[in-house]
C-alpha cells in the first residue's frame, strides 16, 4: 500500500490539517457543552477545564426547565424547522424538475431569477417582510417564520437540485411516460429517489440556519407562545446580569435535536443512490 499513490509525509500533513480544522470547528461547541455542566464560579475561573466532582453542577439545566417555557420553545423550533424544511425540499425539487426537464420560453431567465436569492440575503428585505406580515396578520405566528424560511431556503435548493436532476437518465423518465405514468408519479417515484443524496445535502444546508436563526423570530414572532429555542435562550442574557449557566444549558440542549436531524440526513447521504436503474 505504500507504493505509487501514497506517501507517508503527504498523508501526515493532510491529516494534520484536517485534525486542526476539526479542533477549531469543534472548540466553541466543546466550550459550551463543558461549561453547561459547571457551577457559575468555575465557568469564569477555569473556562476550559472539564467538569470535576467539585465544579459539576446542573443548576443551568434546572433554571432552564423551571423558569422558561422551554418545552414549548423546542416544540416551536421543531415545527418551524421541519415544516419549512419540508416545504423547501418539496417546492425546491418541483421547481428544479420543471427547470431541468421541460423546455419552455424563459427557462434560463426563470432559473436565474430563482437562483438570485443565493446572492441577495433575505434579511435585506426585513422591513418589507414585517410590513407584509403585519398587513396579513401573521405577526407572532409560526406560519410567518415558516413562510420566510421557505423563501430563504428555496434558491439554493433549486440551484443544487436542478443540477442533480439533469443527471437523471432521460430514458428512465421516458420509459415512465411510455408506460403511462403521470408527470407527478415520474417525479415522485422515479426522480426523487434517485436524487436522494442531493436532497439530504440540501436538507442539511437548509435546516441548520433555520434552527439557529435569531433574527426573524425576534422580529416576526417574539411572543411567548411562538418563541423558538434560540430566542428563548436570550431571556437569560440581560443588559446587566447574564445567567451564563442557563444560557449554556439552553444552547447545549438546542444542539441535540438538530444533531439528530443531521444524523438522519447524513445516513441518507452516505447510503447513496439506488443503483441499477441505468448501466
Amino acid at each position, binding site marked *: 500500500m505504500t507504493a505509487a499513490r501514497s506517501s507517508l509525509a503527504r498523508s501526515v500533513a493532510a491529516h494534520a490539517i484536517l485534525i486542526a480544522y476539526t479542533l477549531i470547528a469543534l472548540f466553541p461547541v466543546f466550550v459550551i457543552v463543558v461549561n453547561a455542566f459547571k457551577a457559575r464560579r468555575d465557568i469564569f475561573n477555569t473556562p476550559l477545564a472539564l467538569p470535576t466532582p467539585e465544579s459539576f453542577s446542573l443548576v443551568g439545566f434546572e433554571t432552564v426547565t423551571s423558569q422558561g417555557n422551554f418545552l414549548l420553545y423546542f416544540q416551536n423550533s421543531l415545527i418551524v424547522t421541519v415544516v419549512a424544511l419540508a416545504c423547501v425540499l418539496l417546492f425546491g425539487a418541483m421547481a428544479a424538475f420543471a427547470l431541468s426537464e421541460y423546455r419552455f420560453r424563459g427557462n434560463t431567465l426563470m432559473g436565474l431569477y430563482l437562483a438570485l436569492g443565493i446572492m441577495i440575503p433575505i434579511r435585506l428585505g426585513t422591513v418589507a417582510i414585517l410590513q407584509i406580515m403585519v398587513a396579513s396578520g401573521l405577526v407572532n405566528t409560526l406560519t410567518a417564520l415558516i413562510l420566510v424560511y421557505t423563501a430563504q431556503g428555496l434558491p439554493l435548493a433549486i440551484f443544487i437540485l436542478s443540477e442533480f436532476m439533469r443527471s437523471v437518465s432521460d430514458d428512465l423518465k421516458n*420509459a415512465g*411516460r*411510455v408506460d*403511462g405514468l403521470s408527470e407527478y408519479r415520474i417525479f415522485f*417515484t422515479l426522480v426523487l429517489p434517485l436524487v436522494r443524496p442531493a436532497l439530504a445535502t440540501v436538507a442539511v444546508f437548509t435546516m441548520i440556519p433555520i434552527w439557529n436563526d435569531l433574527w426573524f423570530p425576534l422580529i416576526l414572532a417574539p411572543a411567548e407562545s411562538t418563541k423558538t429555542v434560540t430566542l428563548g435562550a436570550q431571556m437569560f442574557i440581560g443588559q446587566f446580569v447574564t445567567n451564563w449557566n442557563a444560557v449554556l444549558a439552553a444552547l447545549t440542549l438546542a444542539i441535540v435535536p438538530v444533531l439528530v436531524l443531521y444524523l438522519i440526513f447524513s445516513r441518507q447521504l452516505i447510503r447513496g443512490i*439506488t443503483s441499477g436503474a*441505468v448501466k
Partner: protein
Amino acid sequence: MTALELSGIKKTFGSTDVLHGIDLTVEEGEFVIFVGPSGCGKSTLLRIIAGLEDASEGTVRIAGETVNATPPAKRGIAMVFQSYALYPHLTVKGNMSLAMKQEGAAKAEIEERVGTASRMLGLEPLLERRPAELSGGQRQRVAIGRAVVRKPKLFLFDEPLSNLDAALRVNTRLEIARLHRELAATMVYVTHDQVEAMTLADKIVVMNAGRIEQVGSPMELYNRPANTFVAGFIGSPQMNFLDAAALGDTTAKTIGIRPEHIAVSAEVGDLACEVTHIEQLGADTNLYLRNETVGPFTARLFGEHYFAPDSRVHVSFDRTKQHRFDTEGQAIR
C-alpha cells in the same frame, strides 16, 4: 395494412433543423431499422414516433390513426431504451406489469401476459429480483420483456445493444430476431451499427444529416447503393472510393469498389501496388494497399493469406461489381 406512416416530419430545435421532412411507410410485421452516424436525427425521429418529442411539422400515423396529439402511453407502442431504463424501485415482475396496471387491466390477465413474456425470454427465475441485482444482459432482456407484455402495435428500440459487450450483443441480437419471428410484430429499431442493421432488418432506412438517403432491403443497399454515403456506410471494411479518371473512366467522377471484390496476386494483375498494412482475422484477411496514381485502398481476401508490409503485389478489380458515382455522389445506373 400500414403500421406506421410518417409524412413530412420536420423538427427544429431553436434555429437548428434536425429533421428536414421525413416520409416513410412501414408495413405491418416489418422490421425497419434506422441507421446512420450519430447526430443524423434517427433517435429524434424515433422519439417523435413514440410521442416523447413533438414534430415541428408533419403527421405521424400509427395503424391508420393520426397520433400527433396522443400521449405516448395511448399510442399503442412499447419502447426499449439503450440504458434499459428499468424502474429501480420495482422488481422484474413489477417492471413488466406496470404499464398494464396503469391501463387498468385485470390482475389475471397481467399475470398471464407476464408469464408468457418471461417464459419467452427465460426471465422466470428472475421475476422477484430488483434491477440492481441483474447483469447488463439480464436487464436488457427484462426491458424487452416489459415491451412484449404490452402487446403493442409497434415496438420501438433505441440502440438497445449499445451498452452490451460484444458476445452478449450477438446473443441479444439473435433473441430480438427470434422475437420478431414469433410475435410477427412491427418493429422500428435505431442503431448506428450497420452490422445490426444488416442482420436484423427487413428494411433499412439510411439517414444522414436529418434526411433519408435510401430505403431498401439489406441486399438492395449493399448491391445498389443510391449514393456514396450509403455505399460507404453499408459494408465493412468500407467501400473504396477511387478517382474514376485514374482508372480510365471518363463518364464518372468516382468509382466505388468493395474490398471483397478485389483479387490480389503476387505476380499478375491490372494494378501494381504496395502493401502498407495487413490484418489477419483467420476467416479473412484485410490488406491495406497503396498505388501511386489511385491512392490508398483496402482489399479483403477470404481465408488466410500473408503479404509482408512494403512488399509489392498486383490487384485486379472485379469491374462487373463496381459502382459508379457522378460529381454529386449519386449513383450512375
